[in-house]
């Protein structure tokens, strides 16, 4: 047997280390595989995919429409712009109803209040309601419910306009 010293690793040490490294990598791979396997499963045409909502004219300016299948509110501003507001409260996830008489969203769970574009009027909600991207193709409103737009305040870039109205 040779002496073990710090400049020379023995065959046994080398094999031990090699085995631990291989074992570690395998464990990591298995973990990554499990996590990838558990990724959310989303489908086109249902909540989680791109939804076709309807013609632009169906939504008068200054209106808030609940799209139940998409779990969002389609708000059309007076200037004709659209936003799709996810109905899930940014505080603890309750569904926020639109109160037409009060002209705001009021969460039944802990009383957060939001404007028609989703901005916070009253906490505990820590940020405005989240958005889904709206696109308007040939006068038809489409909403991508697969991607949440999380924001800290109202941003005009999130408002979608029909092409002809913009000119």
């Amino acid at each position, binding site marked *: 047997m040779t002496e073990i010293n710090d400049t020379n690793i023995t065959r046994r040490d080398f094999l031990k280390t090699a085995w631990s490294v291989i074992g570690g990598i395998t464990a990591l791979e298995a973990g990554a595989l499990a*996590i990838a396997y*558990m*990724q*959310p*499963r*989303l489908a086109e045409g249902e909540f*989680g995919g791109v939804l076709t909502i309807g013609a632009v004219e169906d939504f008068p300016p200054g209106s808030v429409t609940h799209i*139940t299948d998409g*779990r969002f509110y389609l708000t059309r501003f007076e200037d004709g712009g659209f936003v799709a507001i*996810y*109905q*899930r409260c940014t*505080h*603890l*996830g*309750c*569904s*926020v*109803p639109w109160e037409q008489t009060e002209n705001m969203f009021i*969460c*039944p*769970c*802990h*009383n957060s209040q939001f404007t028609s574009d989703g901005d916070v009027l009253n*906490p*505990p909600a*820590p940020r405005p309601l989240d958005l889904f991207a709206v696109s308007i193709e040939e006068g038809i409103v489409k909403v991508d419910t697969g991607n*949440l737009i*999380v924001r800290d305040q109202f941003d005009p870039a999130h408002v979608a306009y029909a092409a002809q109205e913009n000119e």
Partner: protein
Amino acid sequence: MSRKITSHDPAAGFFRRLRNTLGPKGMPTDDRGRMRMVLDSMILHIHPAKVDVRTLRFSYTWGLGGLSALLVVMLMSTGVLLEMNYTPSPPQAYLDILNLRTNVWFGELIRNIHHWSANLLVVVSILHLLRVFFTGAYRPPRETNWIIGVVMLLLVLGANFTGYLLPWDQLAFWAITVGTSIVEYVPVVGSWLSNLLLGGPEVSANTLLNFYALHISIIPVSIVMLMSYHFWRVRKDGGLSVPKTTAELAAPEEETTRPERVTTIPHLVRVELIWAVTWIAVMLTVGMLVAAPLEGIANPDISPNPAKAPWYFMGLQELLLHFHPVIAAVLIPVLALGALALLPFYDISLGSVGVYFRSWRGRYLTLIATSLSLFVTPVWVLVDEFALHWTDWLPGWPTWISNGLLPLSLLLLGFYTLQAALRMIFKTNPEERILIGFTYLFVALIVLTIIGIFFRGEGMQLFWPWEIVPAH
């Protein structure tokens, strides 16, 4: 002499040979035979052949660990039955529960026993933790078993929480929605983690499937494995810690009086059986008399007002009403759980193991800490609710500081002042300060839980319990 009879006994007939494979017939009548029986049996082997007679004292353990184990067994037996009449997919999940209640023989009874045993298990494992804490039984060499215990408590809570969703009624849906939303506040990985757990952005069919898998396989298997380890460790750590009276503490144990050890059969096994049969009877009676709640089918568009988390998370939900979520749902629980799990590593005095509340003085200090907390916690809740408006007073500040770290630091300062005052008055030693701190914080958690359950009504505002209108 009790020689073991094997099934190969050529003198025995067919039926006798068949019967003999089960083990020796009849109960042994002498102590040697009794000890053999424990050692030869797989199930009884969780016990040693003999135990210290003092550890059998009921008012030491209150049978709480054993009752937890019994409840786990009852939960598994009823759970397996429920599984056979349940589809983890909306809306069938809800319809299956309705069917269970009206069409399945004893379906309602099985469901009720499962429901109430699950809730009782949370209470009983917490009481077991308290008895282990107050007798100092977590101290070396039992620190590993304490940590396993903390992990099992978390698993018990996890089992309860995942099971809560399965009936897929309004109560289940919104309690789980509110409960899991807390995950999103975990810094950096929050929304990724929540997405993984829920199988999407919100509670849905995927969530039900995930929770079902956790509830019927991952969590129970982990609990059974840890329970086996827990019991094995009790033996490895030399049996239970031995109870001492305060008088015995004053006059250290003489080595000359050797502890009396008695055979496990019948002394321990007998009381275990009586205890188990009693509680099975209690749970059957409760199951026959009290129906587990079931509301209307889950409607993701309509949140009930108020939407409350399950009762054992009400303390946490109450904290959420007072602090920024990162502080209330992440920082405080992580610190508290860390302090709890690591308790045996900073509370290391060994003298008082086995003495309830450490000493006579300890009883008074526990009482003082309890009373102080019973007074301070509700007062703080009221003051914070009606008089403190941190976010309005400090408008430019990030809310996790103004309504988070700042008030938390003030509370911790108050806690420290209190400890310092008690130290001045009573000259408390380190183990007494830990006793006071644990008692104070635990009572605070209980008070917050009670406020959350009984004093929060519509819009989570404070009400008197009799003024609260049911959730709508």
